């Protein structure tokens, strides 16, 4: 310890602020090569399969962005809260509720004559998704502001509850009568499905929507007074918050934003590649988005890049199974490593390392 000193910088190094994620990704790739070598695989081959295969052609890229879209949406909302030290880690539950809200509109919208106007149907589904997600996030917000209950724990417990509630719906009232009693709703009408934006792929309207929201998020977080206040609040003492003392407004904004975008992501999933509600609708996007938000520096542009990197890891993990016979857990290991490396390299943003025995101050 004595030979390496950690010195505070006068102010955060802007270069490192964006350099550290790049460094972290590089380190993760290097660690990945090592992992391949240790497992007896050719590291170059492993690199190609894991990191390049998911980028090899238009279709592969469309899949990459399809997988990245829900991550982008969830992470954007979470970042708003994280900026103010509001720790919503229950985006998974809000995602499920968004999916449920949108499914409600899709199932009953036909009866209201919406089947012929996709625009109205999809608009209502998006609204329902965002509102359902936000309402579900309002529970931890309310318990936090009125009873000081930790939003970390409440939002997390509600993930389990959301999963069970969704399971009840698809096993019960919403079960497809022609689905042979399997846990799923009926398939949505065409009007309730997001149109694809690239012929022959599954990439749909959710991507431009997510990109638009990232842009709005960028303006809100970096160029508005409200965003500035959020950041200032985030700089304040964290400790008091964990026990439940903080500005109510920040808690509400943080959780509602996270709930709304996660709910929207849930909507995009049922109205997109899945096309119905099932008991498996939440594929861990809400949790993975926490990593995305951090790796993306709680910054919309960063979140865009980070979500693509995360999606790459998922798809690379599938590729590694198919072509290298590696177990599926490798994707999770890489995700964890990435976050660790980022946290470690973050040191360079606010501090610098000096070699040599420390001089007296």
């Amino acid at each position, binding site marked *: 310890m004595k030979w390496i000193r950690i010195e505070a910088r006068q102010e955060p190094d802007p270069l490192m602020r964006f350099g550290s994620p790049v460094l972290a990704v590089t380190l993760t790739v290097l660690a990945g090569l090592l992992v391949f070598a240790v497992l007896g695989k050719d590291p170059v081959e492993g690199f190609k399969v894991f990191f390049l295969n998911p980028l090899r052609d238009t279709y592969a890229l469309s899949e990459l962005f399809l997988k990245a879209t829900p991550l982008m949406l969830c992470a954007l909302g979470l970042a708003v809260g994280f900026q103010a030290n509001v720790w919503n880690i229950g985006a998974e539950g809000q995602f499920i509720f968004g999916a449920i809200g949108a499914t409600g509109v899709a199932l009953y919208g036909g009866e209201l004559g919406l089947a012929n106007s996709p625009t109205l149907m999809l608009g209502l589904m998006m609204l329902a998704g965002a509102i359902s997600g936000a309402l579900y996030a309002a529970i931890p917000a309310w318990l936090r502001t009125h009873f000081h209950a930790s939003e970390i724990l409440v939002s997390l417990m509600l993930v389990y509850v959301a999963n069970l509630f969704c399971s009840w719906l698809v096993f*019960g009232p919403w079960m497809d009568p022609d689905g*042979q*009693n*399997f846990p799923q709703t009926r398939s949505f009408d065409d009007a309730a499905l997001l149109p694809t934006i690239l012929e022959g792929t599954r990439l749909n309207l959710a991507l431009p929507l997510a990109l638009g929201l990232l842009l709005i998020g960028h303006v809100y977080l970096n160029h508005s007074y409200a965003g500035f206040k959020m950041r200032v609040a985030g700089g304040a003492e964290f400790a008091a918050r964990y026990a439940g003392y903080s500005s109510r407004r920040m808690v509400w904004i943080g959780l509602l934003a996270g709930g709304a975008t996660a709910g929207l992501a849930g909507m995009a999933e049922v109205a997109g*590649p*899945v096309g119905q509600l099932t008991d498996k609708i939440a594929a861990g996007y809400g949790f993975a988005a926490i990593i995305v938000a951090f790796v993306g520096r709680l910054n919309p542009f960063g979140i865009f890049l980070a979500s693509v990197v995360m999606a790459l890891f998922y798809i690379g993990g*599938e590729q590694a199974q198919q072509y290298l*016979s590696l177990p*599926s857990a490798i994707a999770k290991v890489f995700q964890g490593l990435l976050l660790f490396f980022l946290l470690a390299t973050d040191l360079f943003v606010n501090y610098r390392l000096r070699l040599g025995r420390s001089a007296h101050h």
Partner: protein
Amino acid sequence: MKQSRRTLLSALALTLTLPFASSAQAEEPVKAGFVYVSPIGDAGWTYQHDQGRLQMEKALAGKVTSRVVENVQEGPDAERVIREFATSGSKVVFATSFGYMNAMEKVSKQFPNVTFLHATGYKSGKNFGNYNARFYEGRYLTGVIAGKMSKSNILGYVGAFPIPEVLQGINAFAMGARSVNPKAEVRVIWVNSWYDPGKEREAAMTLIAQGADMVTHHTDSTATVQAAEEKGVYAFGYHSDMSKYGKKAHLTATTHQWGDFYTKTMQEVLAGTWKPTNPWGGIKDGMIKLAPLNPAIPKDVQTLVGDLEGKLKAGTFHPFTGPIVDQDGKEVVAKGKTLSDEELNKMSYYVQGVASKLPKK
């Protein structure tokens, strides 16, 4: 290493030049892809499918090679994995969980020269078949053993989700037990997971504590059998022969045998004679087998079970033969009639003899 490079190159070649190349060189072994819902592990649903795959590979050595992706989420990821198999030269894709059905249907339409086979679903097409097994036949036989051997007349059943396949098993088990012991009752605990050994164990322990001296499970781990072994009661395994997890407790198991079916299918594909069929095989077809009977089962019971097994093989006995009365006393099937396959696939009630209640929708 070389193997994987070659598959990668051929994958690239195929995607770039002739995506639907149907007649690869005659010497090249035909490739088959398997999509699994959980890790392969050492026992359980996926393990049995993988055993079947290995049996097929061995039987057709040199003619067929196969690849596996395990732990694939039932949702958008499945479509990508299935498509990847099809684009990278697999002639046959097996997907072994219900939730892959829609993805299989979609991809099968895009790749008319690839054969798709889906386990436990109900959709099919020109190049898309499905297959399933009559697990309930084994359940009925184990029910008979349980009814004969139980002293407390309480039979415990740990279930995952109330889908028809699971309900068929519970009902067949109850009917088997009741056929030899009208006092027997089956108690069911749902653990809401295919795969949570801690919870499965607690559920089994609960059933044992409440007087069950015979337990079985429709979940994926061996926890129930292990709990029985520890508590000195009897258990019936499911999916796999689980006798090594409970030397004394394990009376027998309803095991799934997919190897012959996989071999036959691949032979037909090799010969070009494959046609979409929807086999639903039972003991007669060798798709269901009882694991070796524990010597603790009295001789007369062994004989009785052997006779019933013979009748099932001969096709002269159907476990769901009326009169079948549901829990509320309503007659489902009149005397002498049997449930049709369609009715079996829609099963959504408990028969008399199941003490727990299926929640109303």
